[in-house]
């Protein structure tokens, strides 16, 4: 087996490539074979079905995580080592076959990939996965050209990343031209020239930025198309009654879902996304977090407050309101002592299971039968003090008790108050009748002084 001419890629603990300074990932293609089609005997390895990552500096190939065999190694091709990218030939054959990207890689005499080597070999990337090959190719061209011009700018082959002309001209040199061939900045003319150069570079970078903006806009459109395709694939996948025997398909579907989640696109298949690992983990974390604030708030807390508290505690990687909702709704599935509850008014709260409705109702009834309450009713503030919860929560409880027929509302310039519901106690046939015992009698007695 010939020696591998491609350097490998250093990976992090979770299998992500370690990038060089200023290196940015630009494009991903999955299910890519990388090989040298023309000459199978060269040192170019035949890499099967991996993840092809285009960065600003390199073309990386990573083995698929689920692929068998630890021997599958990663490979990297510096863009600088690519001497030519072939344009795609659209033939009848290319319509039916997987799209291919062919480029020429230069090799050193020893057979290792090098920027300016004497030998060269043509590599082919066969895109077997569902990726937009045309978009990749366009980006490949862009990056390759950008890299080429960058290399030219830096001048020396030591690979210095700073390419701006600085004023750190060697003190030893004399004359207008410094040792590395750039114009020295001396005196007033130097200052003026420096200004000029700054303007020019700003201008250039603005132009580039707008180019990027145009590129970004076109990419955005592609991203939307991509997201649509993914969504449709997920939907069609869940509709058809496939069993779990098709593991690979399920795996890639989960991957897609995780991807969508990480980009912030909500998974369209709600039944499946309910099981998404991210939400499960979040759900447990939330249940733990919520214990302390709940206790402080008397067993019931507004969902919006939890959203703020939780995100503030997290600091980074904030969760969206939707994530929060999902996490809460998962609580029914595991044994946690908290529940999400929605009141008739639409207000959503998190409640400890022990903070039951019956308990609250009993407390409210007791409160509302006190002589003061019989005379003047109960406000949300009064209830809040008795129940030990926030006034808004207390109001929700009062409204809930009202809807159960325990209380009646009294709206006046004095405010919104609640009284014990006397209506059922009033005799239908004799409106003057007050039975001896009972709520009505207590109320009449408490208000005796009024009449």
């Amino acid at each position: 087996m010939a020696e591998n001419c491609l350097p490998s890629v250093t990976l992090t603990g979770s299998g992500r490539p370690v990038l060089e300074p200023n290196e940015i990932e630009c494009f991903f293609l999955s299910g890519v074979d990388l090989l040298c089609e023309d000459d199978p005997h060269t040192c170019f390895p035949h890499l099967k079905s991996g993840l092809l990552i285009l960065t600003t500096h390199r073309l990386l190939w990573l083995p698929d995580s689920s692929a068998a065999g630890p021997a599958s190694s990663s490979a990297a091709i510096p863009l600088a080592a690519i001497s030519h990218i072939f344009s795609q030939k659209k033939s009848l054959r290319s319509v039916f076959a997987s799209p291919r990207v062919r480029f020429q890689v230069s090799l050193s005499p020893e057979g290792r990939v090098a920027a300016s080597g004497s030998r060269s070999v043509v590599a082919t990337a066969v895109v077997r996965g569902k990726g937009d090959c045309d978009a990749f190719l366009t980006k490949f061209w862009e990056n390759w050209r950008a890299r080429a011009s960058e290399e030219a700018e830096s001048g020396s082959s030591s690979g210095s990343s700073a390419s701006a002309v600085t004023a750190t001209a060697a003190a030893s040199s004399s004359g207008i031209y410094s040792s590395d061939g750039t114009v020295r900045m001396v005196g007033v003319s130097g200052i003026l020239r420096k200004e000029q150069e700054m303007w020019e570079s700003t201008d250039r970078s603005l132009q580039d930025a707008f180019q990027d903006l145009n590129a970004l806009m076109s990419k955005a459109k592609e991203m939307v198309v991509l997201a649509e395709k993914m969504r449709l694939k997920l939907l069609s996948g869940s509709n058809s009654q496939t069993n779990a025997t098709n593991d690979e398909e399920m795996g890639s579907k989960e991957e897609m879902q995780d991807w969508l989640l990480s980009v912030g696109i909500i998974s369209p298949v709600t039944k499946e996304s309910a099981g998404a690992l991210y939400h499960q983990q979040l759900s447990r974390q939330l249940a733990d977090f919520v214990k302390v604030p709940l206790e402080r708030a008397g067993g019931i807390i507004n969902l919006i407050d939890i959203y703020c508290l939780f995100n503030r505690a997290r600091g980074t990687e904030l969760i969206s309101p939707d994530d929060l909702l999902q996490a809460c709704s998962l609580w029914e599935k595991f044994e946690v002592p908290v529940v999400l509850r929605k009141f008739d008014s639409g207000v959503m709260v998190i409640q400890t299971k022990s903070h039951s409705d019956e308990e609250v109702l009993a407390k409210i009834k007791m409160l509302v039968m006190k002589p003061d309450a019989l005379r003047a009713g109960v406000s949300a503030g009064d209830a809040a003090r008795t129940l030990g919860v926030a006034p808004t929560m207390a109001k929700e409880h009062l409204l809930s008790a009202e809807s159960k027929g325990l209380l009646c509302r009294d709206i006046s310039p004095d405010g919104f108050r609640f009284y014990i519901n006397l209506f059922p106690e009033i005799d239908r046939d004799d409106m003057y009748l007050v039975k001896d015992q009972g709520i009505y009698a207590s109320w009449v007695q408490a208000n005796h002084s009024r009449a």
Partner: protein
Amino acid sequence: MQKLKGFKLPHFFNYPPYFTLQPVRDTREKQIQLWKELILDYCKTQKIFVIGLEEEFPLFTNHAIERSLTHEARAAFLSALISEGRAEWMDKGHRKCLILWHRIQDWADILIQFAKDNGLEDGVVTIEEIRSGTESQGTELHGIDRTILNRALKLLEQKGKLVVFKGTSTDDEGVKFSL
């Protein structure tokens, strides 16, 4: 217990929620029923035939507890009366409500009784005499609203119990019974 112009008010008249339209269905039903009864009773004893929705109506305000029915609440209770056939709107704008604490049919019966009591089975009497004459004093007909009286008379006319005839002026309008 409170009195409003001699009318004995029930205890719940001092219950503040009584003056707030209740949202909960069962509670509201009971509230409406109590208000209907109270309105009819009050109007009967006070001989009130018309309630103006936007006017001061003593029953709709309780000064002791400083509560008043909102326009919405008044409309709700009056509508309930109307649905039951115990009231009618007098105008398209729904500002004046005719209270039928006796139904028109009941008034018709009262008229017939009046006629019998006063030997007017074949007799003639003016409308004014029915409303304010000596014979009507002490009866429910005394001070009856004209609209209601006319409706009752019309009903009886249709049944052939009497004939209404117009005189030279409104004061001369009369009724000939034929019971």
